[in-house]
């Protein structure tokens, strides 16, 4: 089985092709380039180097979120269009779980993405199966750290945004906070495929309805709902 993996959920970009459990090619970049400009050319390059045609792809794994709204939409739009028109199954994988699976650690792993204004998208996982112990959520960094404090054990932080918040994290958790090395801090599409392979393949008729998991409604909608409640 030949898998194409695509992750544009946040600033980094990753594309990989895995054939029967072997990574044929993986491209990971953290160049802050626009995903709309680089994603399709990167997919083209990966397939070309692997000497494959689009029709050779048997399944597509895409990072479904959370992350940057625009980034998610670019990856998901490309993935669902490819899957629909090539008639191949599409599997969505959590961007946080994929990132957490980078960490080589047996205890609690926390993956996070900056969601601006002091907030993060974050989750914490434990064990080989990456069982969530803090479910994926949009939360203030401080609230997240308070939850992690109650764990009373070291926490492995992974991701470039965790690195960015190292000072705040250490201020709260002190020596209990551990940080993954830079080489493990970027999302990898081969990891996405690894996780996708554990899932049953969804039916083709689910592709049309595949959308990113934003984990937040838009501001306009939140305000509208507030107005409706006031009116009641």
């Amino acid at each position, binding site marked *: 089985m030949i898998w194409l993996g695509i992750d544009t959920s946040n600033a980094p970009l990753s594309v990989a092709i895995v054939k029967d459990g072997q990574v044929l090619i993986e491209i990971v970049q953290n160049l802050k380039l626009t995903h709309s400009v680089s994603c*399709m*050319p990167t997919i083209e390059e990966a397939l070309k180097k692997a000497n494959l045609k689009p029709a050779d792809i048997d399944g597509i794994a895409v990072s479904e979120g959370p992350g940057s709204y625009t980034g998610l939409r670019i990856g998901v*739009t490309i993935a669902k269009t*490819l899957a629909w028109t090539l008639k191949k199954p599409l599997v969505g994988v959590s961007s946080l779980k994929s990132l957490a699976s980078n960490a080589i650690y047996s205890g609690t792993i926390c993956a996070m993405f900056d969601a601006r204004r002091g907030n993060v998208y974050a989750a914490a996982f434990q064990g080989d199966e990456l069982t969530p112990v803090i479910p994926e959520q949009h939360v203030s960094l401080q609230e997240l750290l308070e939850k992690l404090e109650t764990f009373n054990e070291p926490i492995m932080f992974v991701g470039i945004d965790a690195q960015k918040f190292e000072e705040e994290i250490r201020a709260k958790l002190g020596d209990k906070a551990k940080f993954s090395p830079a080489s493990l801090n970027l999302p990898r599409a081969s990891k996405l495929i690894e996780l996708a392979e554990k899932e049953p393949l969804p039916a083709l008729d689910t592709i*049309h*309805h595949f959308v990113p998991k934003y984990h937040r409604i838009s*501001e306009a909608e939140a305000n509208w709902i507030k107005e409706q409640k006031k009116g009641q």
Partner: protein
Amino acid sequence: MENLILAIETSCDETAASVIKNGTEILSNVVASQIESQKRFGGVVPEIASRHHVEQITIVIEEALEKANIEPSDLNAVAVTEGPGLVGALLVGINAAKAFAFSHGLPIIGVHHIAGHIYASSLVEPMQFPLLALVVSGGHTELVYMKEHGSFEVIGETRDDAAGEAYDKVARVLNMPYPGGPHIDRLAHEAEKGVEFPRAWLEENSYDFSFSGLKSAVINYKHNMEQRGEEIVPEEVAKGFQDSVVEVLTTKTVKAAKELNVKQVIVAGGVSANRGLRESLSEALAKEGIPFVAPPLHLCTDNAAMIGACAAYMYEAGVRGDLSMNGLPGKELKSWARS
């Protein structure tokens, strides 16, 4: 010209796809509108628009191909609106177009949204050059001169609000729901006489437009009436406003058409669905003996058929994009080079 093009348009709040044969024949024209959802907010919220596009995009493309009874291998190219528009919305159409084109080894063509609106007329009757196009929509008010296919010269444009924007704002003042244009048009037709509002002619030789002063005049009129404890008559306000917009648009269009000696005048864009504007242009141009084309309403609002019509000519001229295509929210209307 012989070609078959799949076109995609997601620049604002309509998710649209179409299959166009030889630049003139519509094999399918599918539009999924978000108006019901966007109504809640009294206008288009970009983030909501982008989310709806992702929900609809493959469904709409599939329907366009099925209705046209076309297989991807029958196509010559995939066309998509590259800009201008809402960047997040554009990106959904562009990336779907790229992924589809790549899957089937097809070339991709990035189309200017306004060029698309103008080419909607070629789905009705052949363009006669040189021509003048009046493009009026929620985001644009422009007079475009074309001496041949692919040649665009903007000779006048709005300096502030687009005509459609002014319609929406005035509709809000009159407590009409979004989108306001059709409501104002309807109200205006119900009034005997309109309130007298100013016309913005600008400098004598300018083909530019300005509608923000008119909008303020409507708001001031309402305030003054309220302060005097008098009720406004919405029909008369609508008529007064519409008369001002239509007179300025018509006068400048006719003046430019005569001065440039054009063989055809085209009206395009969402506001060209406005009955008052159509009647006025049609009458004034008939008086001057200048042929006038107003595409049917469903080709005036945003749609992908117009993008496909424009792309057919671009395809023939050898214009091609590539997989690094990006959304260009402020894309300029430039002539395309023949290769």
